[in-house]
């Protein structure tokens, strides 16, 4: 546990001092969503219909933007060598890095999502579910993304490879995230979709740190 907290604190500190990553993610998210009304026209009916999908797809892409930096700097400056041979289980430290990644990228997305939903004229009934679905979905994105980020370490043009690896795995989160919000807007039951998103999160939290740790050990060899 002390290792987990130490890693979270260090990564948060690094993110706050460097600052660029989390700003970049939120800026990308906001700008892309703002572009949609220009692209597909300002008719409220259409925007309302696509709002949930636009928000989720954009969030997916935004959270991918910062992934390749998750382990890259540690890999380059030798910190990763030292992290992988810590007396604490590597999967716990990985979880710490993912938690810090989510706090600096996922959480700002979560905060920006309802504001952008207003901009897309989304029905107010969907706001609560949108936030809950984002709260369950974005940590899953960070967890899955970490596996991809660890696998492409040391590869040239890792960013392209990373999106090929990770985006297919993001699709279930996208499907159920959008479906939950749409159901809430149409006044249908949405509990099942949220439970499935919760299930994804639990499954990812159990499996992804372990897979990431294995990939990191491979990367430092």
């Amino acid at each position, binding site marked *: 546990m*002390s*290792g987990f907290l*130490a*890693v979270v604190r*260090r990564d948060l*500190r*690094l993110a706050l*001092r*460097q600052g660029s990553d989390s700003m970049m993610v939120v800026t990308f998210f906001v700008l892309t969503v703002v572009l949609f009304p220009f692209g597909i026209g300002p008719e409220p009916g259409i925007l309302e219909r696509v709002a949930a999908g636009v928000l989720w797809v954009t969030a997916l892409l935004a959270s991918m933007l910062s992934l390749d930096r998750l382990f890259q700097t540690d890999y*380059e*400056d*030798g*910190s990763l*060598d*030292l*992290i*992988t*041979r*810590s*007396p*604490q*289980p590597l999967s716990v*430290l990985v979880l710490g890095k993912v938690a810090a990644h989510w706090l600096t990228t996922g959480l700002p997305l979560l905060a920006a999502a309802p504001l952008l939903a207003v901009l897309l004229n989304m029905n107010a009934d969907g706001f609560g579910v949108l936030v809950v679905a984002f709260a369950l979905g974005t940590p899953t994105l960070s967890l899955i993304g970490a596996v991809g980020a660890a696998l492409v370490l040391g590869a040239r043009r890792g960013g392209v490879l990373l999106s090929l690896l990770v985006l297919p795995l993001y699709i279930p989160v996208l499907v159920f995230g959008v479906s939950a919000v749409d159901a809430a807007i149409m006044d249908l039951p949405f509990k099942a979709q949220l439970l499935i998103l919760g299930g994804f999160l639990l499954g990812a939290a159990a499996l992804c740190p372990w897979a990431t740790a294995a990939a990191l050990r491979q990367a*430092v*060899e």
Partner: protein
Amino acid sequence: MTDQAFDAAEFAGENLVCIRGERIVFADLSFSLGPGEALLLLGPNGSGKSSLLRMMAGLLRPSAGQLTWGGEPVADDPEAHGGRSRYIGHHDAIKPVLTVHENVAFWSRLWAGDGSRETVEKALDAFSIGHLLEVPGRWLSAGQKRRVNLSRLLAAPAPLWLLDEPTTALDRATVATVEHLLAEHRARGGMVVLSTHTDVSLPGAKVLQMDDFAVDPALSGLDAEMAVAEDEPWTEGVRP
């Protein structure tokens, strides 16, 4: 930084083989190291000093053979091995935006669960860089970075030190400090494995000449094919 003796066991390697790419770097390498002993790795560039150290650190899996600690295979419990050994490689692993204190305290907390200010200050003072405590990593010179890197050995004590050319970029006075600390560490029952191209005084150290374990390309199956390929005449008129 503690002054008590380590309860170290024997650290040994049996018949280690290292293959990088398609080349056998060394084969059939064995060593053993008891409490208070030191092992000096010598040999030309590419003879596998760094590979052997990474192997000892558990970062690189041996292609054959095994490492043991007190008779137990190291690979069975990598976390325990991480707790009892410290590895200093070519990279200094210093974050440019964190202060020296934050850099060292993080590793001290991660490795030894300590990370207190006194521990970090004491460790930095040992390398006469106590005054750099609040300086961000990006303002350090190469030699200062190396000293910060080495101070982690003291901020998170462990019996086995694996040092890959630790004196690179250090001035002569600091090399003397390192030698003094190595002697102190061994006096407390610690063990040192060190690779170097320069003179580092390690009285009574066992010496491992890495070229003794190099495999003759003619005898190694992998290399033999490559050697044959290189002997073939160049038919296209391309300069070899």
